[in-house]
């Protein structure tokens, strides 16, 4: 999953971090927004500046073409790899090695649009994006850039699913810590999503999902029978999620993540 969906960078300090790559469709959507913004801006400037154009309409068009490249390059560089469309969709152009984006990278990436747009509707760029390892169009390959997603960092509203019931799994701190250590991030997310969407599931499917999840969690931390005997599978999963997602001081985490969003 990592190779295809994320750019993984290992720092000289030995720390590994990954940047989630943007897909071709979200990028296309960002491009459509950018084009719409340019058209709107163009028509606005046309109306405002028309009486001032001494050299006629086509010179204005030529200046607009040059202006587009200069302004979009400058904006992308100053906004650290973002255009209006990319900002709205939380995408960002970054250096493929995780370094700072250089102005020359921005310009070359933009220049290569002439090939990426061939033969029509960015077909070449789209195919390159689908086939390349890091979802790069030709402009990205030439400039050494990738487009990443900058997801909004917000915690789910746990209060709507967890409430304030007594949690027997949280009582044993050692086992709770073991549960947190043994559970993979993906499974933790599945359990949380299952709880958030429980009302959308058919009764049979709901029983089966929570049964399988509870069975999995039981193998991770061997709680004594008296701690879990009265719990249904769904309540068991609910308690596990509370252990995983809601440590003693939950306000601390929520505010940290809010500042990062």
């Amino acid at each position: 999953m990592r190779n295809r969906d994320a750019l993984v960078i290992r720092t000289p300090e030995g720390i590994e971090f990954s940047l989630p790559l943007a897909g071709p469709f979200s990028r296309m959507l960002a491009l459509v927004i950018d084009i719409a913004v340019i058209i709107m801006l163009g028509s606005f400037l046309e109306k405002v500046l028309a009486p001032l154009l001494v050299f006629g309409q086509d010179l204005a068009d030529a200046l607009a073409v040059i202006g587009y490249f200069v302004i979009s390059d400058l904006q992308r560089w100053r906004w650290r790899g973002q255009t209006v469309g990319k900002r709205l969709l939380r995408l960002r152009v970054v250096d493929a090695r995780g370094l700072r984006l250089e102005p020359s990278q921005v310009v070359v990436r933009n220049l290569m649009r002439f090939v990426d747009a061939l033969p029509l509707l960015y077909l070449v760029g789209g195919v390159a994006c689908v086939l390349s390892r890091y979802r790069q169009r030709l402009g990205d390959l030439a400039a050494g850039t990738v487009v990443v997603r900058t997801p909004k960092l917000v915690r789910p509203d746990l209060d709507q699913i967890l409430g304030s019931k007594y949690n027997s799994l949280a009582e044993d701190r050692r086992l709770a810590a073991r549960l947190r250590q043994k559970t993979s991030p993906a499974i933790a997310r599945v359990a949380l999503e299952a709880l958030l969407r429980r009302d959308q599931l058919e009764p049979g499917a709901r029983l089966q999902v929570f049964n399988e999840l509870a069975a999995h969690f039981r193998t991770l931390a061997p709680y004594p029978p008296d701690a879990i005997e009265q719990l249904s599978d769904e309540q068991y999963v609910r308690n596990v999620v509370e252990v995983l997602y809601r440590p003693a001081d939950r306000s601390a985490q929520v505010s940290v993540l809010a500042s990062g969003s």
Partner: protein
Amino acid sequence: MILDLARFVETGRPHWTALERALDWLESRPDPSMSLEELERFHGLYQRASADLAKVSALASEGELRRYLEWIVSRAYAEIHEARERRKFRPWRWITAEFPRTFRRHVRAFQLAVALTLLGSAFGALAMRIDPEAKYVLMPFEGLQTSPAQRVARERELQGKQLAGKKGRFSAELMTHNTQVALTTIALGMTFGFGTVAVLFYNGVILGAVALDYIRGGQAVFLLGWLLPHGVIEIPAILVGGQTGLVLAYALIGWGSRVSRPDRLRAVLRDLVTLAGGAALMLVWAGIVEAFLSQYHEPVIPYGMKIAFGLVEAALLTLFLSRAGSK
């Protein structure tokens, strides 16, 4: 590893927030500078966040926290490990020194672009000589489809009046078209140079066919008077575009190089931008000259004067590209 997450977050939060603030400050400035103390503090915050990321990476529920730490660590990593030289952009210096120096550094690619265009010209001229009917295929432009004698007669009659009030527009059209051709020639370097070679060859074919058509029609002087004023800048500009595309292709192919492809491309990025910018500037000048001078013929402007103007331009351009910025 067993971690008291609440305490971990509580103690880490002030450092992460401080790192974020420093990053926001750095990223809001194009050319930031820090004192040694600030740098040390920034580096310390980065190391702290990196260590925290390592701790939280294995935790199940902390996907969001991990992503948050990854995001600030990646931003800090970009600032700290960037070692590429940053030079302040000075337009005058860029035009008068950096562009000609870069041109000379890649002069072999330019020579190859010239050779490909000459080859195309020879092919175009040969095709016209063998099959004059090929003119309608080789020169798909309305203005060139009539015989040279007819064209000259029409131009003499019009005396450039067809452009009255439209010179700015015509100039802009030319700039836009030529810039698009040059930029496409550059971008086609990404096809391992095949596209660039094809465009250069095709430009040569048209040039050779037009030249032979006018020479055979006894209009060589008109041709020189028409083409030289703008052509001596426009054609080299397209060739510089070709040169840029070939430099890109060479970096992609990397014959005999042990350096990886991304490194090769990274090494020529700045040169590509300089050459492309230089070509675009030349085309702006050529567009102005073509609209305001080239389209006026005798008796409005004597051919000799136009040819002399073109030759002076060619000499100055040669001098500029071969000498400017020399140390």
